[in-house]
């Protein structure tokens, strides 16, 4: 949306108005103009590693090893993601962060593609927006229609992004998953019918906690994040770290709510 603090992509602004992150960016805009010279002088010091590329028509720079997504976020361009978490290695499964790179036959995932010198990237072209919209519609098609009573409805990233992309009723029809609720463990409730297979919990458990409680089983549309051989989460192994629960972008993982405890946040403002 903002590249080098100079330009606002009209399309970018249009699509992400209800997102808190974007609002902050818009507010921060005047300060970023001041901040730019400082950042450039810092970059000059590391001139050897500096890579310049074009994003949405404006020149931006990053350091070797950075991904397109990191550079975009550094420059205030909002690319939606469902599987990416900045402190975890990219898994590139949700495909929502796809961007257009000149010379590439397909759209490339911004979260895992490293930047190269002279790269020409478009992050919000009509082609990309249409693709993102269909991807979220595909996810919504097999997502249960239980938002009204969902514990995470007000902090659900999937719902947030769907609202952002102005998706109403999904145009595709797909089966829905009906898995029994897993509440055997006192620290975590898993409702795998709501899982969108972003695999954040799999990676988080492994990389942040060194445990390997979760893995993916079955294949294709039947894929499911399971614990062990598709058993309830082990009471001994899962030690109430909440890491996966806070990262879960949908209502699939949640803490058992204690009596009297309130919901995590106030109800979400839905546009339109």
């Amino acid at each position, binding site marked *: 949306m903002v590249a080098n603090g100079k330009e606002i992509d009209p399309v970018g602004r249009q699509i992400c108005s209800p997102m808190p992150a974007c609002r902050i960016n818009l507010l921060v805009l005047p300060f970023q103009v001041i901040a730019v010279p400082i950042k450039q002088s810092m970059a000059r010091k590391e001139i050897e590693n500096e890579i310049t590329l074009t994003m949405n028509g404006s020149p931006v720079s990053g350091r070797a090893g950075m991904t397109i997504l990191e550079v975009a976020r550094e420059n205030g361009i909002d690319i939606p993601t469902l599987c990416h978490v900045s402190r975890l290695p990219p898994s590139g499964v949700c495909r929502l962060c796809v961007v257009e790179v000149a010379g590439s036959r397909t759209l490339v995932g911004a979260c895992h593609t490293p930047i190269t010198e002279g790269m020409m990237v478009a992050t919000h072209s009509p082609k990309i927006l249409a693709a993102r919209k269909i991807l979220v519609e595909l*996810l919504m098609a097999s997502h249960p229609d239980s938002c009204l009573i969902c514990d995470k409805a007000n902090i659900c990233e999937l719902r947030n992004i769907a609202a952002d992309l102005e998706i109403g009723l999904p145009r595709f029809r797909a089966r829905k998953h009906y898995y029994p609720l897993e509440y055997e463990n006192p620290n975590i409730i898993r409702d795998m019918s709501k899982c969108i*297979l972003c695999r954040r919990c799999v990676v988080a458990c492994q990389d942040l906690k060194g445990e390997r409680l979760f893995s993916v089983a079955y294949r294709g549309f039947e894929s499911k994040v399971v614990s062990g051989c598709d058993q309830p989460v082990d009471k001994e192994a899962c030690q109430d770290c909440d890491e996966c629960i806070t990262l879960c972008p949908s209502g699939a993982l949640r803490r058992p709510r204690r009596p009297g405890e309130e919901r995590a946040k106030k109800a979400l403002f839905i546009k339109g």
Partner: protein
Amino acid sequence: MPQENIVLKNCGVIDPRQIATFLERDGFQALEKVRREMTPEAVTDEIKASGLRGRGGAGFPCGLKWEGTRKAPGGEKYVICNADEGEVGTFKDRYILERDPFTLIEGMAIAGYTLGAKTGFIYLRAEYHHLFDLLENAIRQIEEFGFLANFTIEIREGAGAYICGEESALMDAMEGKRGEARYRPPFPTTAGLWGKPTIINNVETLMNIPRIIRNGAGWFNQMGTERSKGTKVFSVSGDVPKPGVYELVLGSSLRELVEGLALAKNTKMIQIGGATGRIVPYEQIDTPLTFESVLGAGAVIVFDQSRDVIDIVHRTMEFLAEESCGKCTPCRQGTEVMVETLARFHRGEGLKKDLKDLADLSEVMTLTSLCGLGQAASNAVTDSLQHFKDAYESRVAGN
């Protein structure tokens, strides 16, 4: 253009259990030539000059792949032969492995010499378990004759997943993980098996290597079209009186293969490249078989007038949905939605808006999927929508 036996030169002539019969037919002369006269650079230059492209379906220039892997930093490198011939309707690799395992191993040894690799792997499809002993016997005999020098070849067996024929999923499977496509970059040339630079080639590609080395890039370069050199082995099946394996010079017309050799009659359409392949209606039967037009892995399935397009496309999509690894959204959800939509058309309950939705979904799957499966899954739908739109429209509910 004529039928040519280059890859299949020894098939049916030698005894695959006896190395002596192979040596009579100039066996291992290419490997000897490489070891005595050529530097690794000269080998990759020769392959590059030959214009050989990968025969597994994607058609990536083989020389570039080898050069990239050779130049990639890292001491340990690997060679993998992809013998996980899972594509629907292909059986050419099985035909080759059954009849001439020696040339394949010679090709792998040349790749190993080029990289300075110590280990090569043959990833054998689970269904080809009966070839395990034959291949192991061939490797043992070659080792006894001392042709492999410091290079060892191991056979790894698959467990029956279609996706594991995709190179990155294959490597995941070999590493003992769940076979799933990886995102790229990094490409296998720099980070393949166990994160090491890896050459991964189809059986047929590796079969071409000894021929190119022995006869020179110029000889190979003469065959084929401008961007597709050499020959291609096709597996022809379906409604034909003479199904089987045929080798043709690239650029030959589809008619020559289907009607000339396999003697097909009353053809309605031809699916080239298996489940993820393209559908060619009979009107376009004069299409040349090249990488630029249609080719894939060389599976040619012929359907006659009695077949129903929607039925074929629906069953193709059911197969792909079943075999999708489920990692990325467009492939996992997209194939499922397509199966649902096509099933409705199959029952005659399609909706008018489905036609546009299918086209839109096809495009997004092609653009955003992680690997070749998702990217090519919608080919059959796209092509049938283009060539057989009547079939869809007649199944719209209320018609």
